[in-house]
């Protein structure tokens, strides 16, 4: 019955949604209408919850947007990453953990996808020509996550190809945010998906790597999902219609969504489904619109936000956190919309992922997963942080669709930066996250509150030793370097750029980049070009030195010292044809007489030495500021181009210096050591003493603990 139902859906769907195949039934489809993406999907998928299987049929219409004649197509078959230990994913996982079976599923829990049939619309069978390829080099041999199909004839520029596929998949037991636990399913990266064809280069279609996410072209999707009646379904896109097959005990829901580059869904009988509206006029005040328009230099109409239908699928045990989820989502829709352009889709679905499906904290177009626990923290911004972050990927990945394989920082770094800004604007700083045996420690202790940019910076400053931010995802030294570089270091560099370029340049840069590259696949060069254009200056050095480079950035104050300038110097002097020796005794007598005569407090020579401790240097005319403060309250400010290893500043003033500080405005957030950015004359400060007493107390407690085991 199920297979019959699926076939009926398939036939009906093809004729109604995609229309009849082109005359001749071959590859040459009519190109899509202007403005529509060159890729269209229609997928019929049925979930077999008992067998943990997916049975699917898929129609793909791809239009060649380039001037190349394209002889083939590369398809992602991501779930084959979980098929065996020969996959790139599993081999990289084993290498990362240092274990032979590191991260491998248990017996019987493997996942895979088989393309059982693939034909052109005229019925030409392409399955025999389907081969697995290893686009990332021969070392990935054995991997089956990329398949190549060869067309009978190349697809000419502007022509379309219409493919009909059948596939079946074994759902893995929770790996890489896809899979099942008991009767709950999260289904991501599940259907055969073409890579991105790049003119002159061919298909950009990488294997499924451990430290990487995804890349695909914008498309129009129609997806018919069949699940057992009683399952609560959540999906990318907007539900168009639902039909129940009483005999089969299944319900089929059709979802449609234009201009997205991926499609994910989830099903579980345990979900609670709650729907709310983001009503823009209620969330954003007229003043906020005015301020945003003025800051961005845009007409008011361009910053106005549309309403959005919000859906939350949440586990019953998290019911008490529904309002927290919606509040965070509303803040995200509001601020991302005001800063980076209105959210263009009608719906967004927020999923509190089913227990042990391991699918929390992941983004898909118009759907994302969050994640919380039964005992939520009070002051920690969780689940708020993950909600804002994953919704934000709707912009940085969803709309500005950079290549996550080759430039993960362009979405993760931008989004980590943006998440921090939204959380700061909506909530202020959040407490450090700490738990013990599931208990949030902020229930019992006052944990310090911090902004995201602070923790990002701490995580970011050291990883420069391993890789540049711009490395390809799977070519990072290890997972830690990948994560800290593409998320935190990239975010810290963007925060540094923000501080350096200031308002209104920076918000306009971000807005311009976000809107100019909406529905496109920008690269670092595209972003750098926007920065240079809007800032009106060449910031290439910043990208070369800090994004591409692996040198640490650390400027500091090495020393500050003031010495009295002698009123009279010792030695032999020629004056007026005579020669006179000023002896020590004579100088002392002279100085005593001058002091007695009240000739002022004397003068001091202050020497401040600035140092470039790191290897990275400033460039492009940017300079670092240094401020020296004196006992009489005066302040001297200098700037340094930071090219040499050190610079000496000298001041002769009637007062001694009390402190010197480099980068007093905190522009260079990427600076590796903030402690050496200032140097004051004088001893320990109260807070340092307090810290030391607390350290001593901590050691006393540790020793007492050791003693208790005697």
């Amino acid at each position, binding site marked *: 019955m199920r297979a019959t139902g699926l076939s009926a859906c398939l036939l009906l769907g093809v004729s109604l949604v995609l229309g009849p195949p082109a005359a001749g039934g071959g590859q040459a489809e009519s190109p899509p209408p202007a403005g529509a993406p060159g890729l269209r999907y229609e997928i019929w998928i049925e979930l077999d919850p008992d067998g943990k299987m997916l049975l699917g049929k898929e129609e793909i219409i791809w239009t060649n947007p380039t001037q190349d004649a394209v002889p083939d197509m590369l398809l992602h078959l991501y779930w084959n990453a979980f098929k065996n230990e020969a996959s790139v994913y599993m081999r990289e996982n084993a290498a990362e953990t240092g274990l032979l079976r590191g991260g491998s599923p248990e017996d019987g829990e493997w996942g895979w996808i088989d393309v059982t049939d693939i034909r052109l619309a005229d019925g030409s069978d392409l399955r025999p020509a389907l081969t697995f390829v290893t686009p990332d080099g021969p070392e990935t041999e054995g991997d089956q996550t990329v398949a190549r199909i060869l067309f009978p004839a190349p697809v000419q520029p502007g022509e379309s190809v219409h493919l009909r596929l059948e596939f079946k998949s074994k759902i893995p037991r929770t790996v890489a945010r896809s899979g099942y636990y008991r009767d709950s399913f999260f289904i991501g990266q599940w259907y055969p998906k073409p890579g991105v064809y790049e003119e002159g280069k061919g298909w950009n279609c990488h294997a499924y790597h451990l430290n990487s996410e995804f890349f695909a072209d914008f498309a129009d999707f129609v997806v018919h999902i069949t699940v057992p009646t009683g399952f609560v379904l959540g999906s990318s896109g907007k539900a168009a219609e639902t039909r129940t097959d009483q005999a089969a005990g299944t319900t089929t829901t059709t979802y449609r969504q234009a201009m997205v580059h991926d499609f994910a869904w989830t099903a579980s009988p345990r979900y609670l489904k709650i729907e709310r509206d983001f009503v823009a006029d209620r969330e954003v005040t007229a003043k906020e619109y005015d301020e945003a328009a003025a800051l961005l230099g845009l007409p008011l109409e361009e910053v106005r936000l549309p309403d959005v239908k919000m859906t939350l699928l949440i586990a019953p045990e998290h019911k008490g956190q529904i309002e927290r989820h919606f509040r965070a989502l509303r803040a995200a829709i509001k601020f991302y919309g005001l800063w980076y352009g209105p959210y263009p889709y009608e719906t967004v679905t927020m999923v509190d992922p089913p227990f042990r499906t391991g699918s929390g904290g992941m983004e898909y177009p118009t759907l994302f997963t969050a994640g919380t626990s039964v005992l939520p923290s009070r002051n920690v911004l969780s689940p708020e942080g993950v909600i804002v972050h994953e919704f934000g990927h709707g912009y940085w990945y969803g709309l500005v669709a950079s290549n996550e394989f080759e430039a993960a920082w362009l979405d993760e770094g931008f989004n980590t930066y943006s998440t921090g800004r939204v959380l700061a604007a909506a909530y202020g700083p959040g407490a450090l996250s700490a738990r013990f045996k599931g208990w949030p420690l902020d229930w019992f202790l006052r944990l*310090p509150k911090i902004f995201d940019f602070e923790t990002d910076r701490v995580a970011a400053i050291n990883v420069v030793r391993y890789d540049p931010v711009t490395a390809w995802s799977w070519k990072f030294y290890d997972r830690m370097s990948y994560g800290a570089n593409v998320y935190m270091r990239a975010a810290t560099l963007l925060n540094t750029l923000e501080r350096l370029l200031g308002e209104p340049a920076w918000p306009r840069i971000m807005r311009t980049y976000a809107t100019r590259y909406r529905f496109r696949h920008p690269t670092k060069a595209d972003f750098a070009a926007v920065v240079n254009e809007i800032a009106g200056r060449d910031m290439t050095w910043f990208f070369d030195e800090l994004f591409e480079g692996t040198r640490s950035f650390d400027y500091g104050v090495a020393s500050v010292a003031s010495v009295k300038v002698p009123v009279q110097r010792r030695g032999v002097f020629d004056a007026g044809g005579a020669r006179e020796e000023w002896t020590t005794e004579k100088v002392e007598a002279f100085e005593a007489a001058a002091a007695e005569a009240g000739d002022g407090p004397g003068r001091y020579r202050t020497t401040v030495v600035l140092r470039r401790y790191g290897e990275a240097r400033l460039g492009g005319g940017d300079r670092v500021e240094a401020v020296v403060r004196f006992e009489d309250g005066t302040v001297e400010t200098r700037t340094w181009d930071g090219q040499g290893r050190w610079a000496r500043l000298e001041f002769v003033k009637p007062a001694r210096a009390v402190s010197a500080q480099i980068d007093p405005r905190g522009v260079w957030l990427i600076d590796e050591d903030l402690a050496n950015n200032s140097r004051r004359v004088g001893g320990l400060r109260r807070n340092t003493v307090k810290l030391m007493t607390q350290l001593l107390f901590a050691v006393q407690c540790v020793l007492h603990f050791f003693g208790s085991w005697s």
Partner: protein
Amino acid sequence: MGVIKAILAGMGTTIRKARILVILYVVNLVFAVIAAVPLLALVRADLEHSFLGASVRPLDPMWLGEAVLEHQEALPAIAASLAVFGLFYLALHVFLYGGIVGRLLDREGPATLPAFAGDCGRYVWRFARLFAIALVFYVLTLGVVMGLVSALFRPLSESAVTEWLPFILSNLHLLIALLLLSIVHMVVDYTRIAVVADAERKVLKALRHALTFLKKRFWRAWAIYLLIVLGTIVGAVVFYTVLGLLGGPGVAPLAAGLVWMQAYILFRIWIRTLFVAAQAEFYRSHPY
């Protein structure tokens, strides 16, 4: 003797023998100062001349993260030296327990340093042997028994429908571990007391005395132990609550915080002697 009466009597003893607390406190402070020197030196080098020194907070993530990364090569050495110091301190406490138990059980005797040191020397080898036996019990408790408990809980946890069950089981596991450890601790305490009170030279015999004693009145003995643990928890809550109120600018709150922290260390040391004193009172009220 009843539970409360034993604890109250123990309190009386510890107060009468307050000099023991002073000795133990001084030992703790001296060792802590020595152990903390490298850490304090790092803090001083980093912050003495920096503006950060004026704004740094105890758990300042900016400074803490930066310092950890900056000194990451030195950190393993510091951690190792702290661990070695801790183990040495543990060994020292095996020695000091002779003085603690000896003086607390000598009702009429003085709690002077010579008398304390004399007891330390008198019982050191017996308590060292007891420590070796206790180690076996700790390993059995944490390794074998808790391993069995884990094996019992695992299938339940793995088949859970929501996170509640794993959460409850995980906490239950911890609770069971703590309760079992408290029993081992209690047995070791009573054995020490038996060594001194019964002038028993054979540790295994003393252990048998303790076990026989506990067999007859386990629940009351455990109640004494757990009530003192409860007191410790209450004390810790009071300590951290008051410490949180001692913020503010100026030297006075800083000094008050320092004094309060040291008072807490003294409280913890007092609790340790109270365990011995209360259990000794209970033991002596029911002669073997």
